[in-house]
């Protein structure tokens, strides 16, 4: 008996039995469903900065997704949190991506290994899979390079028995960006040459858009690096920083990628010619409420098809003003700043930012609060002060007294009593000629959305958040119920990348660049073309792409974050009802309970975790 067992045990065929708990590459990739399922798992890990991108982690939509509403939009000059004044919740560790990035890279390399051995799929499918590998590598290394500078390039699956080989030193920052450019190019060659009708899959066009974004980042770092010059070992070894001469190379790459997209005619702006600003507002809003409305403009969409942990987002929860919070207890976390509102043009003064004028002397840089000696402009309706501002503003923010989801959103900071005493930021009420008036505009917190400290639910800038919110969804009590899709690449970004690269480098076609800039403005109901200047392009970029998680990286790559944020206080606009005239006045002021915030230049690069073990050279200042 024993001999028999030994004999059987020695049989070769016994060891060749296929494991039943695993599926082979060939079996998995032999059907489109199998490919889609596998890619879906990888796509989820692409470092797309969508609704669930937080300073703590990407894809932050677990069962209890409570990070107190800390999303990237409130950490720039475009917005402030209702309870969060910092611009950097985790300091140097904001948006840390090292471990997730290398985990993802390992998974991409595993797919790459499998492709070569597949026998059951066509060469065409293999080619496309290789394209997906290059695309994901490009995206992943772009995400690493913009955080850490030069990083370890691990292009193939590592042999874990070769311990010495596991320690891959950092490449220089320039080599890393060159690698990102090269894998973008490979992706553009291998991926489908036609746009995906639903914009969900990577194609040549997505690879080119990614290349444009990455090249512009690299070029800007090379050009503006010396605005904050670092020193130390990482600098001496070229691991952070690039020679200024590299800027032209990357601008050229950006220009080439953009020109290919623009000249292909594959993409255009959604509703390019609105009849009037109101129409332009609604058109712009619809792009973000449901990107599938605007497929001519979307280049790459990340879908959110299901609710629940790991699937949905919390955008409608955190974003809605207090009055339309539904069953959700913690709304109103994202408060657009007055600086952003000021930046929007008026149609009668094209090409210039148009600060909100609140006093007869026209002074707009006094933030010292209400002053009885000043002569304030008076308005019957708080909305009137915003008349004539850029259409996109009204699709991006909720202004006081405007209608959102059939509700008049009341945002008021106080009143001036008939005896002239100002009561601002205090919860009081007063009877005037038999009618009761309330400092915050209504009798109960449920009926207003501004300035009170109630629950952290009220805006403290005077503006509510609107872009991306779903107008037909009422927030429920629970996490991850929002299923609005996210546009990762949108045609206007390409047009603006192009304009910036042309201006900064003197390469490319300035006529085409100016045309792109003005196409975006025309879609926002502007009638006058403005010249191609860097101020115009940067203002347009800030406004058109606002809250699309670009601003942080724009300030970072152009190295002016520390200049803009040196002991800076963000600004608010307080609507105040004058009970003597029953008209509204507005007070430009520092955000209440805001305080001064500073961007520490060390944060231009993130610290690399675990250098004590890996022996990698650490970034400066850490």
């Amino acid at each position, binding site marked *: 008996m024993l001999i028999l067992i030994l004999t059987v045990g020695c049989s070769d065929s016994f060891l060749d039995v296929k494991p039943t708990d695993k599926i082979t590459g060939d079996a998995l990739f032999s059907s489109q469903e199998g490919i889609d399922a596998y890619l879906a798992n990888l796509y989820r890990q692409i470092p797309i900065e969508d609704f669930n991108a937080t300073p703590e982690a990407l894809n932050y939509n677990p069962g209890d997704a409570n990070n107190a509403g800390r999303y990237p939009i409130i950490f720039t000059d475009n917005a402030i949190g209702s309870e969060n004044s910092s611009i950097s919740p985790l300091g140097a560790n904001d948006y840390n991506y090292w471990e997730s990035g290398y985990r993802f890279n390992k998974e991409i390399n595993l797919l790459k290994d499998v492709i070569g051995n597949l026998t059951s799929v066509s060469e065409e499918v293999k080619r496309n899979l290789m394209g997906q590998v290059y695309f994901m590598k490009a995206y992943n290394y772009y995400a690493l390079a913009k955080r850490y500078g030069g990083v370890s390039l691990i292009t193939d699956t590592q042999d874990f028995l070769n311990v010495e080989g596991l320690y891959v030193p950092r490449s220089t920052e320039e080599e890393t960006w060159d690698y990102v450019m090269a894998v973008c190019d490979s992706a553009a060659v291998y991926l489908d040459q036609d746009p995906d009708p639903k914009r969900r899959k990577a194609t040549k066009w997505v690879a080119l858009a990614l290349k444009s974004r990455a090249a512009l980042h690299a070029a800007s770092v090379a050009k503006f690096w010396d605005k904050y010059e*670092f*020193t130390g070992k990482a600098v001496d070894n070229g691991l952070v920083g690039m020679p200024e001469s590299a800027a032209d190379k990357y601008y050229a790459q950006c220009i080439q990628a953009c020109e290919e997209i623009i000249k292909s005619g594959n993409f255009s702006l959604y509703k390019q010619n609105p009849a009037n600003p109101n129409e332009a507002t609604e058109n712009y809003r619809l792009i973000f409420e449901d990107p599938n409305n605007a497929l001519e403009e979307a280049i790459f969409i990340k879908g959110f098809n299901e609710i629940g942990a790991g699937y949905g987002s919390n955008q409608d929860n955190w974003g809605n003003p207090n009055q339309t919070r539904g069953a959700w207890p913690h709304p109103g976390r994202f408060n657009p700043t007055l600086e952003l509102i000021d930046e929007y043009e008026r149609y009668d003064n094209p090409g210039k930012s148009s600060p909100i004028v609140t006093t007869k002397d026209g002074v707009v840089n006094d933030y*010292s609060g209400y002053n009885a000696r000043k002569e304030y402009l008076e308005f019957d309706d708080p909305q009137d002060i915003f008349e004539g501002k850029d259409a996109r503003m009204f699709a991006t923010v909720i202004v006081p007294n405007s209608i959102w989801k059939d509700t008049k959103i009341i945002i008021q900071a106080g009143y001036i009593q008939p005896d002239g005493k100002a009561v601002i930021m205090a919860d009081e009420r007063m009877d005037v000629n038999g009618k009761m008036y309330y400092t915050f505009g209504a009798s109960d917190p449920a009926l207003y959305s501004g300035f009170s400290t109630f629950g952290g639910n009220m805006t403290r800038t005077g503006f509510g958040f609107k872009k991306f919110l779903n107008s037909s969804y009422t927030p429920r009590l629970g996490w991850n119920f929002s299923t609005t899709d996210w546009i990762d690449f949108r045609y206007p970004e390409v047009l603006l990348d192009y304009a910036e690269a042309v201006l900064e480098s003197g390469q490319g076609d300035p006529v085409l660049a100016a045309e792109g800039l003005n196409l975006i403005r025309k879609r926002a109901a502007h009638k006058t073309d403005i010249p191609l200047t860097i101020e115009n392009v940067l203002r347009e970029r800030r406004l058109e792409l606002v809250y699309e998680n670009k601003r942080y990286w724009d300030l970072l790559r152009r190295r002016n974050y520390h200049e803009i944020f*040196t*002991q800076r206080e963000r600004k608010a606009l307080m609507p105040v009802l004058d009970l003597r005239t029953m008209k509204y006045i507005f007070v430009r002021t520092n955000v209440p309970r805001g305080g001064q915030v500073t961007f*520490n230049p060390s944060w231009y690069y993130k610290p690399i975790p675990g250098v*004590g*073990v890996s022996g990698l050279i*650490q970034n400066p*200042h850490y």
Partner: protein
Amino acid sequence: MKKVLFIIVVILAFFTSCELDNYDAPNAKIFGKIIDSETGEPIQQEILEGSRIDYIELGDFANPPTQQMRFKTDGSFRNDLMFAGKYHIQARRGNFFILPADTIIVKGETEYNIVTEPYIRIKNVSYAIEGRDMVASFQLEQVADYPVKSIAIFADLNPNVSQSLRKLANVAEINKNVSPDETFTLKMKLDPFMDIIPDGKPSFYFRVGALISGMPEAKYNYSEPKKIEIDYSTLPPVEPEIPGNVIDDCESLTGWGSGGFQLSLDTDAKQGNFSIKAEGQGVVIYQKKFAPFDTQVDKETGTLAFSLFILDTSPMKAGDSSIEITSSGGPDVEELAWRFGEDFEVTNGWNKIELKLKDGRKGGEINLNAVNFIRIYHTNITAPMVFKIDNIRFY
């Protein structure tokens, strides 16, 4: 029995593993100062995001981390939790010339001083309350071969006041090489202090700073923090100021020209941080062409106002002289003009010039909705003079 023994052994094992780690506690201390080699004085520092001392312990470690210490405001440092041993040490990211990394032995209580030079020495600092302003005067000795980027005055309730730790600040970008004789003045309005402490006689800490350009990761150089009491009750009442529509605030030299005079920004200002200083001898003292400016005043009631400093008026002899504004983009056409000595008087020091538009001498009809030129000239200046102009406006 065996079973019981086993349990006892296991429990004993738990007890032994409950011991604290078996490393020795830190057994050495280091302290010292960063000292200016020329003056022997400590180089003033800031505690928040300030200069730092990097040190690496040279022991039997594969990848020893870089550790760091910070200076105190007075330029001293101390670390009482060091391990005795050999270290690489280097002070960096500061307001001083960086020395090569040093190798030192730390044992017991070790004193280690860093002797170098600051990028800028700040000298002869004095503070005075003038009107409703705090005015700091100081001189700078530029040690580094790069222009001074900015000068600043910082204020806070905390004695460690600095550029990162201050409630109030006035920062002026100067971007120039400075001579040790030049005196700078910077003002801070005292009214915002009342937003911090509304009444009484509060004390605040003040500090003057200067930042070098061209040196990577440079920090401000500072004067010593100075505690100053501000007695609000002694401040003069708020003067009703006539702000007007400012055609030029004289905060920049852009567009300004002169014939024979050297123009520069000067921190002796009536408004903002700067006035425009003209030094030398010639005919045209100041001249500027503007984009068309709407004065928002009319010819009957309007006034052209500005501040004009003249160090010594005696070299101005009788001669053709004028202050002119025009809407023709150049002199003498569509013009209003006023003559020195005939239409207005000037004295030594700062003059508050207020010129009624209805009294101006006409050279054609000026368009007050589109003023685009200003010129100040004098044909008979007999010796080099110093002028300063500021805050040119209409009301």
